[in-house]
Every structure is written in C-alpha cells, then in structure tokens.
C-alpha cells in the first residue's frame, strides 16, 4: 500500500507538473502560438534594478511592439506573424532569475556614458538556458529590439574586430542584427531605424521550429524585376520604370496565399524644352499582396496586387495618372493577360529554383504612346 501510494503521488506530481510547468528550459520567455496559418510570438521580459521603472517598461514594450509588428507586416514573410512583447517592471530586484523568465537588469547610465547592452543567447541559435541580460537605462529603441531578437533566438550578424569596430556579416549590412556602417553617421545621429527583412523572420521561425518541433507550411518564393521604358510620339516625355518585388506563398494542398513587398522607381529620362513633365510621387517602398493557384495543367498563376498608390504629375502640379503602379502600366498593356488591378503571371509546372521567366511588354496604345520592357520573375526558393 505504501508503495502504491508513493507511486500514485509521483504520478500525480508528474502529471500536474508536466501540464502546468514550462515544457523545457527557457520557453516561458517565448510562447509561439501557431493557429490558422498565423504565428504569434508572445515574449515575456521583466526589467529590474534601481533604474527600472514602470514607465520605462511601458515605453520599451510599446516601441518594441511597434517596430516588430511593422517589420513583420512589411517583411513579405510567407507566414503572417505578429508579436506580443510584454515587458514588466519587477522592482529593484528580479522576481526570480531562474524560473525561466527573461530578466534584464537596467544598468544606470549617465548621459554621455557608454554602456554595451547584452542578453545571453543559447547555443545553436536557440533560446538561452538562463535568460538574463543588462540593458542601458537610456538604451535606444533599436537596441531593445535587437536584444529581444536574441531572446527569440536570433544570433548577431556581425563580428567585432580587434579595433572594436563591428563588421556586418556579408549581406547583413542594412539589417538590424548586423548594421554597423560608418558611412551613415547622421543616420546614427538622428536615430534612424535600421531594419528587419524576411531573413530575420526565417531565423525566428527556425529557432522556434527546432525548439518546439512545430512544422510550418512550406513556402514558395519568387522575386521579380520590372524594367520598362514608356514613350510617346513627341519623344519628350519618356519614363524609365524600374522596380523589384518579392512574394512568398504558403503552400497547403496546392493552394497558395502569400504576401510580398517591393518598390518601383519611376523616373523621367528626358524632357523636351517647353515640356513640363514633373515626375512621380509615392512610388517607393510599396508593399504588394499576392495570391496564387494552380490550374488543372499544373501551371502556377501568380497574382500580384499592389497596395500603395502613386501619381505622376506635371511640374505645375497637375496629376495626369494616379493609381497603383502596376495597374497604371497594365492599363496600357495586354501583355500580361489580365490588365487592371490584378496581374496574372503564369509559370509552367516544371519550374525549378533559379528558373527565370520573362514577361515581355511591347504595347502601343490609343494615344500613340507605348511601353516596352519586361517583368522577369525568378523562382527563388521552395522552402
């Protein structure tokens, strides 16, 4: 009876502990919730120390949520991702430093004093076993976001050289986890924010996937390059239109849904004396949405929906065209099969990573102007 009771007690303990406690070390700091194709990261951090305050916790929480969620929305990552960063004020001392909480000591830093903030990151780009760190009381928003990224399993993408200057890993010079250019002194001065891109979210997801064994849907990525010249009979108003976009799809049961981002630069390349072509506004950095489907022959139809409007104008300010960039182009074009708000690029079923498909536009239209150029789409990846 004694043995049975002991066994029962153990069983009860094991069952309850397994149900209520954190599943493995560190994970109470980051809770990923994957539901209905959407991923939400809940990150819990406590700050403590004599310079920690409820106001500081609230400020860092608000700003980091803003930066993470704006970046996630614009990233074009195929898995829609949201962040709920929770930063709590613990007091002069931490609630606890070894119950799995991410505990940041707020280092008193006087104006002008240099302090290097840090948090610990675990091995293999995964969560740290003992979440802890020191953050300057006057840390910039981007410092806080950089350190939270470590909590999410993202390693630094730079190395410190012997002279103490940090050098970004190749290709990471413009990224929040690697940026260190000396050239943009005044960008640093005014606190210009550096950026995330889809690679950061891939790393977050890889970290979570490894740690929790979650399998995310496969992603199918495409990159596109737009290179067009427009012209009209007088040869006075010529436009050069260059752009790029990338889209990434979740692939489930041959159905595709995805998002993308990109930019288009629309530049007048010549003017006749007396003409007053003004240029174009608001065409940079517009995001695109994308959808796709396969037809019965296995062709992939890639639909791109620009999300941002632009307008072309004369120097007197008069607008002569307004709308999303691609529809403006395709209003004059029959080259893509589906003129109007949706562009429909059809890719064959035997496509491989690295394959490029060129969609030519050479389209005279009613007022004597024409477009000439191409949109080239490359199969960038299948996972």
């Amino acid at each position, binding site marked *: 009876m004694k043995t049975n009771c002991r066994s029962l*007690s153990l069983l009860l303990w094991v069952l309850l502990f397994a149900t209520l406690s954190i599943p493995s070390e560190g994970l109470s700091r980051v809770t990923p919730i994957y539901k209905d194709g959407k991923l939400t990261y809940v990150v819990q951090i406590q700050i403590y120390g004599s310079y920690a305050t409820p106001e500081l916790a609230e400020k860092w929480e608000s700003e980091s949520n803003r930066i993470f969620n704006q970046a996630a929305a614009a990233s074009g990552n195929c898995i829609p991702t949201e962040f709920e960063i929770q930063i709590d004020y613990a007091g002069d001392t931490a609630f606890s430093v070894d*119950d799995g909480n991410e505990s940041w000591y707020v280092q008193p830093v006087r*104006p002008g004093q*240099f*302090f290097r903030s840090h948090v610990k990151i675990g091995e293999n780009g995964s969560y740290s076993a003992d979440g802890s760190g020191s953050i300057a009381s006057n840390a910039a928003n981007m410092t806080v976001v*950089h350190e939270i990224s470590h909590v999410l399993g993202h390693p630094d993408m730079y190395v410190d050289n012997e002279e103490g200057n940090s050098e970004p890993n190749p290709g990471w010079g413009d990224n929040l986890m690697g940026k260190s250019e000396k050239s943009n002194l005044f960008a*640093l001065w*005014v606190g210009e924010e550096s950026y995330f891109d889809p690679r950061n979210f891939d790393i977050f997801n890889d970290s979570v996937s490894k740690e929790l064994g979650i399998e995310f849907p496969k992603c199918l990525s495409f990159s596109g390059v737009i290179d067009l010249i427009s012209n009209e009979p007088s040869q006075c108003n010529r436009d050069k239109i260059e752009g790029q976009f990338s889209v990434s799809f979740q692939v489930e049961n041959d159905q595709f849904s995805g998002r993308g981002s990109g930019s288009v630069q629309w530049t007048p390349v010549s003017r006749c004396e007396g003409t007053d072509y003004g240029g174009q506004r608001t065409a940079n950095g517009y995001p695109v949405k994308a959808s796709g489907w396969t037809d019965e022959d296995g062709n992939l139809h890639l639909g791109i929906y620009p999300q941002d409007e632009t307008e072309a104008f004369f120097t007197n300010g008069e607008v002569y065209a307004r709308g999303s960039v691609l529809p403006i182009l395709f209003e004059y074009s029959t080259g893509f099969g589906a003129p109007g708000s949706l562009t429909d690029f059809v890719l064959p079923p035997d496509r491989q990573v690295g394959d490029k498909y060129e969609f030519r536009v050479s389209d005279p239209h009613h007022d004597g102007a024409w477009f000439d150029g191409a949109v080239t789409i490359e199969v960038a990846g299948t996972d």
Partner: protein
Amino acid sequence: MKQRFKTCCIPVLICCFGLSGCGDRDIVAETPEQNKVGMEDAPVIPEQVSQDPDLIESIAGFDPSNAGASFRTLHLLAGQESKGDFLNKTEELTSLLSSEQWPERFAAIYFLGLVIDESNAAILVKSLGDKDERLRVMAAGSLIGLGEKRSIPVLIDAISSEELMPFSRPSTPLALLSADALPHFTEGDFELLESKDSVSLGEAADKWKQWWKSKGDDLEWAAAEQKYK
C-alpha cells in the same frame, strides 16, 4: 504571477500532500528545485556564475574577438564591486590604464566608468589624455557626470569627430555621446542636438569651444543640481 504560482507551487503542494499521506520522506530529494531565488533574496547583479572571475585578470584578458563574453564578465564584476572593493586594486588598475595593449586600456576605462563615483573619480582622470580619441571620450563620458570638469574639453573636441565608440551597438558616434552629455550637464546648448549635418555640427563645435574658453575656468560642479555652473 498567477501562472508562476501554479508552475512552482502546485506540484510541490501535491508532492508534499502525497508524502505526508504516505509517510515516506525518501522522495523529497526528487523534488525539483524551482524558484530558488525569490523576491527577497534575488541578486541585483545581472548574472550568477559558479566562480567569481578575478578583476585584474578579467580586464587584462578582455578579448575583442569574444567581446560579448568579455562584457558580461565586466558587468558581473561591476555588480560585485558595488562595495568599492576595486579601490584596493588601484595600483593594478592604474597600470592597466597605461597599458600599451589597447584592449586592456579599453576594458579598464569601461569597468571604472561603471563603478566610480564622485569620491573616487580621480582614478580615471589620466585617461582623459589617452592617445586613442575613442578612449579619451569614453573616460570623459563617464567623468562628466561626476563633477570632473576636465572631461568637458575632451567631449567638445569629440563633437567634430567622425569616430564611433568601439563595440557600441548600434554604432554610436563619439559626437553623439558629446551631444548627450554637454547640454545635460552644463547650461550650454548651441543647437548641438539639432545639428543634422557636418556643417551645423562644426558650427556648434565652434560655439562650444568659445564657451569653454570664456567660461571654463570659472565653472564649478553643483552636485545637488548635477550641473556645472
């Protein structure tokens, strides 16, 4: 906190209940040690290590190629030095401040910047003359808020610098540290914070130099107000 209570306490309560009902104490050793550090006894220092590193060895061993670990060690040591024990090692620390090895000087200045106060700030003053501008400015940034006015001209000179603070993330121009400190601890401003290009920054630097030339000798540290007047 509720979740934390459930996590830690319910299994322990069930376990204790089971044990008392069964009268078997052998199982106590199997209880997980959860939440060893509570509200009352949590350390203020950010991290714990099993063996305390030696202060002088840690500073001398600052490794730029593994800067993250080296900084963590310095932060740990700074947390432990809150009692002012470093004052027993001023000779060794002074020697490190004069080292020919750049990383040693960097680490010594950085560590002292974290632990000194107005009563012992003098130990760092010699670094205001370091041959490396970046280290001079790091020392000055630590000293200006401690009433050491010899730090002011160093920070004024740094307004025109295009150097970055070593190991700073995000990269921090020395001029930004000056812009952070000078208007805060003095009654000057001279549009320093509003400068958005090298021309306006240069103009601001000239005004600061003139200000120092005319006022520097008379400035005194008003400790209560944390300002030079």
